[in-house]
């Protein structure tokens, strides 16, 4: 399954084919948007499409979710290898199993090989986050899971379509393992339509340019991506750079699991070593190798900020080392549900911190992590409800030249899915939103300050107590500061009722929320960049006038001489 290499495409064909391959993935995503079944999926676009070469390197991508991208090459490789001797034109493979190259179980990938002259030249694949894939809790994030089987249906690589014929029996098996069989079936059919469109477009490209020319283009695109990354790495200081972030985990001695990383940069090449991280745990924060790889690649992309090389050529310049049986390269049956969000954030942060040592000018302060909760109960009409939306995401980190943004949240998908409206929330749930605003002094102090955290006050208005289940991160691990900037404050959520007020912990579950109680969420602010005393005075004065920074904080943290 090797592409005919050696030939160099003409600069014109290379430019056009790169553009067309990008359009192929965009059309796959649009097709998915317009045929996917579950109404949530078509409005949130929790899916991504890629074209891969015969060696499973991403050549082109249409990303709606950054953490999907770097994970797909391994998934498709393992799918292909499972059918190495039995792969035919018209086959469509399907898998979601974290121990067969997947990430977490809701992310189901369909991959289809592109054949020409009896050989596989390229692959197209589309990964979508399915609403429900079975498991002990609806929606897939089972904080209580201690084994992968509790998280839902495992789908090792299988043929959903064999030589053009849809395996209805397989489709039925998978669909019936979901709480929403109709949605899952419909969404898988939409994924199928999307990968078929991708193959159809590739066919047109091959007819027009021929396989040798396309092969040359694919190599040229990957070489370009590699060059971008190598040039960026060459601008960095050679040496071994260390980063360390933490995950909040009650099973750890002090409640913190360290995520240490070293990045060794030499001659435009990087070795990312995550082998020193802890052993895998019996909780859903383990990250399969593909997901760990994706998080590392996202960190490098954030660091470079150059989208021209948005392909796997860059991966040739970055070597990843993990340790089998560890948190970041677990073996079955470790559960993995939170890997695409919580664990991914911690890995991205650690790598960014290490890279900061390689080029301080590119440093970015820490982001608020994701801390959310679900509220379940009955509305006044007695109908059960589960509210699990995510408002008040917290600030992003300052960086050279810019303050952070407010209300963007986690590094795994910054500013991804918009929050639903307050009016819809109040209209659909027994909740009254009493306040949703920026919170002063929450931006990490720095020459460029972190984005502000916010304040959300929810008042529960049901007749009977509701149950709150929390999940997330970022209460004791604060968004880190960088280059002498300070960390932002962590999340601070609490519950207040007639009895008093109590903090909501990230692992709290089954907390009773009384009618009339308030849930108050102060979200984390981003980390600051640079020495706060160097903050531009005009910006600081504006911060004060706008109420982003209080007078007191301006004096204490920014050493401002304030005239009263």
């Amino acid at each position: 399954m090797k592409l005919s290499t050696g030939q160099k495409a003409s600069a014109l064909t290379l430019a056009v084919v790169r553009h067309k391959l990008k359009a192929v993935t965009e059309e796959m995503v649009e097709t998915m948007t317009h045929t996917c079944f579950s109404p949530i999926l078509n409005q949130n676009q929790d899916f991504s499409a890629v074209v891969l070469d015969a060696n499973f390197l991403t050549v082109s991508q249409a990303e709606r979710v950054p953490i999907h991208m770097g994970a797909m090459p391994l998934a498709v490789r393992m799918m292909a290898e499972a059918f190495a001797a039995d792969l035919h034109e018209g086959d469509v493979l399907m898998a979601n199993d974290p121990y067969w190259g997947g990430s977490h179980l809701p992310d189901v990938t369909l991959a289809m090989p592109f054949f020409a002259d009896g050989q596989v030249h390229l692959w197209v694949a589309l990964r979508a986050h399915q609403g429900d894939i079975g498991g002990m809790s609806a929606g897939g994030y089972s904080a209580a899971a201690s084994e992968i089987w509790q998280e839902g249906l495992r789908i090792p690589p299988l043929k959903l379509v064999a030589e053009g014929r849809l395996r209805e029996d397989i489709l039925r098996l998978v669909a019936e393992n979901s709480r929403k069989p109709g949605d899952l079936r419909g969404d898988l059919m939409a994924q199928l339509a999307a990968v078929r469109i991708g193959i159809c477009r590739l066919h047109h490209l091959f007819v027009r340019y021929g396989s040798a020319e396309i092969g040359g283009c694919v190599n040229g695109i990957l070489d370009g991506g590699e060059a971008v990354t190598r040039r960026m790495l060459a601008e960095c200081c050679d040496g071994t750079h260390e980063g360390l972030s933490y995950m909040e985990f009650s099973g750890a001695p002090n409640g913190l699991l360290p995520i240490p990383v070293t990045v060794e940069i030499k001659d435009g090449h990087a070795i990312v070593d995550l082998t020193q991280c802890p052993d895998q745990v019996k909780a859903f924060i383990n990250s399969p190798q593909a997901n760990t790889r994706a998080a590392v690649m996202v960190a490098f992309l954030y660091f470079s900020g150059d989208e021209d090389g948005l392909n796997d050529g860059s991966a040739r310049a970055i070597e990843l080392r993990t340790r089998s049986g560890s948190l970041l390269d677990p073996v079955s049956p470790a559960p993995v549900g939170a890997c695409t969000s919580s664990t991914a954030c911690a890995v991205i942060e650690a790598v960014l911190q290490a890279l900061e040592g390689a080029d301080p000018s590119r440093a970015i302060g820490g982001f608020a992590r994701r801390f959310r909760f679900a509220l379940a109960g009955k509305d006044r009409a007695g109908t059960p409800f589960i509210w699990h939306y995510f408002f008040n995401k917290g600030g992003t980190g300052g960086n050279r030249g810019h303050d952070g943004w407010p209300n963007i949240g986690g590094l795994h998908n910054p500013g991804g899915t918009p929050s639903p409206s307050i009016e819809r929330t109040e209209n659909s749930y027994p909740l009254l939103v009493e306040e949703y605003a920026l919170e002063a002094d929450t931006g990490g102090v720095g020459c460029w300050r972190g984005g502000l955290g916010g304040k959300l006050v929810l008042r529960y208005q049901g007749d009977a107590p509701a149950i709150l289940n929390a999940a997330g991160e970022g209460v004791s691990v604060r968004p880190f500061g960088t280059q002498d900037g300070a960390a932002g404050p962590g999340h601070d959520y609490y519950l207040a009722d007639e009895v008093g007020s109590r903090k909501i912990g990230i692992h709290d579950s089954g907390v009773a929320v009384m009618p009339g109680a308030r849930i108050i969420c102060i979200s984390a602010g981003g980390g600051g960049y640079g020495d706060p005393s160097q903050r531009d005075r005009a910006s600081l004065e504006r911060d004060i006038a706008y109420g982003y920074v209080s007078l007191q904080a301006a004096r204490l943290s920014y050493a401002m001489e304030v005239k009263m």
Partner: protein
Amino acid sequence: MLIGVDVGGTFTDLVLADAGGALHFTKAPSTPDDPSRGVVNALELMAVQRGEDLQTLLRQVSVFIHGTTVATNILVQRNGARLGLITTRGFRDLIELREGSRPNRYTLRTPAPEAIVARPLRLEVTERVGANGSVITPLDEAELAAAIAQFRAADVGGVVVCFLHAHKRPEHELAVRTAIERSGWRPFVSLSHEMLSREGEYDRLSTALVNAYVGPGLQAYLRHLFGQLNARGIQVPVFVMQSTGGVLPIEAAARRAVGAVTSGPAGGAMSGVLFAKALGIANLVTYDTGGTSTDVCLIQDGAPVEKSRTDLADLRIAAPAIEVNPIGIGGGSVAVVDSSGILAVGPRSAGAVPGPACFQKGGTQATLTDANLVLGLISPTTFLGGRMPLDVNGARAAIENDIAIPLGMSIEDAAWSVHVLATSGITEGIRLATVRRGQDPRDFVLMSFGGAGGLHANGVARELQIPKVVIPRMASVLSALGFLAADIRQDLQRTLDRPILATSHAELATIFAELEAEGRILLKETGVVADHIHVQRSMECRYARQNHGIPVPLGDNLYPVDIERRFTEAYRSLYQHAHEGEPGIIDACRISVFGALPKIDLPVQENGQPDPEPAFRGRRDIYIGRPIEADIYWFDDLRRGMRVSGPAIIESASTTVLVEPGSIAMMDRVGSLLLVAGES
């Protein structure tokens, strides 16, 4: 006599349809410091052209329609009114919180957008309406008075009010207007529920903010313009083009300034409607390649496809608008060898200043226009009717330095690469625009306009396998021409937020009757007589699990069972499936009330001889991947029935069309070019 005037960035275009139905065109340079001067200049040129004085001309005008980018420019350049915002206590920051979203996921080192209203001028007052429309906390009048006094002291030009659930119960928002009026102060006021009577506080807030931000500036301009025209004899109201393709009279247009913000491409889409009708085409996709970008619009069943929100300049405008799919390819698009060593064109543009290297205005970067000039596709002497001689050597140097040397190819091949990549960009943009609507591009006829469109039409059509391209002769004034296809239009809506089947025919009929009555009153104020009014009803419906609705067109039948079926059909045509048995929810009832204006028909030309000899202007060497000699024709001299075979270039003062070898162009009955792409 009908007149349409479109003020663009460079030129002010004028189209006049006389009593006999003949069309006349002219253009004058735009005058950005006071755009009304350019309008008057264009009118004077037209008067001269017709051999009469301006006053005589204006006295004959029965309909005058004006399109302006004043509102758009105010928003994009961020030089609008100083705003004051009043919100429900606890919610002044919603505009800065942006629903927790940001457009780009990878580029983390960018500044957060500056909120359009400064935080110290976002004031909260005590009041609260619940989700069911009941008053939980009455409006605190004393706080309100203090807020108004503070705004007045700060000399704000626009006051915006956005209270939660105001669409369900607007009385608190209305009370703010009353209080401002009582205070004797006269700022521009936008109430969120009047901008959008629908659930979704961020959409209402952002739309009301944009309205008040651009409103005072637009109002001042329109009043000034009318003063200028009135002083010169115009005796009819002036209408202003809206983003829906409808028009509103000046005062209504100023009050609803947000409708003019995205009106720029509406004229072009409406001219697409005009041509679709004249040529008997149901489905047309138009693309307009200008200096900085290409705008793609879809016309389905003779009407432009609309959308209900637009994100522009970091803000949300939740007002109905003709859907425009922008592609970052225009004549000024910069061509570079990017950091991965591969050629890329756009979306960065050299704009009008410094512009392409060949403009000799200081631009040194290679652009698409430079490439097309190097290829011989654009004539250095007839660009913009010869008013702007182009510097071929400058263009060659830019292409050589930026593209040819880094990629190790000849200047001609480098220029051709830029041309082909731009064609590919337009092609894939059009494909996505149709796919996004659940459509196949091959089911559409293509229409190309804008100065740079015709050079790529042949390639785009071939790549999309669209058999025919319509290229109107009046390509450069098409937007103004489209104005003359417009009706007066008022859009009204009312939130409902209930399952379709939980409503009744009687209830819906009452709602629509009330909306219609309201719309008729608004139209009456514009002087439209009742028998020229027609109405389009629609609903915004969604499944319970969804966040946003889709438009569902309705006729007279308002029985819920039939509406449910229509929703299912509309959903299916967009998404290829529907959720049978799952209840649909009506978010809002919407009505568009149209007051018919006199319309033009495109004049039909006499059929003549097929030989294009009278339009022949010689031959020129061009380069289209290989050197070739092309016949040159003058567009204005081509007549109905004439056929031009490629390789040929068809030129006019404002546009150039490339007919590739193997392709044919014919003049059709309304004087547009019909290009049939051959195999390459």
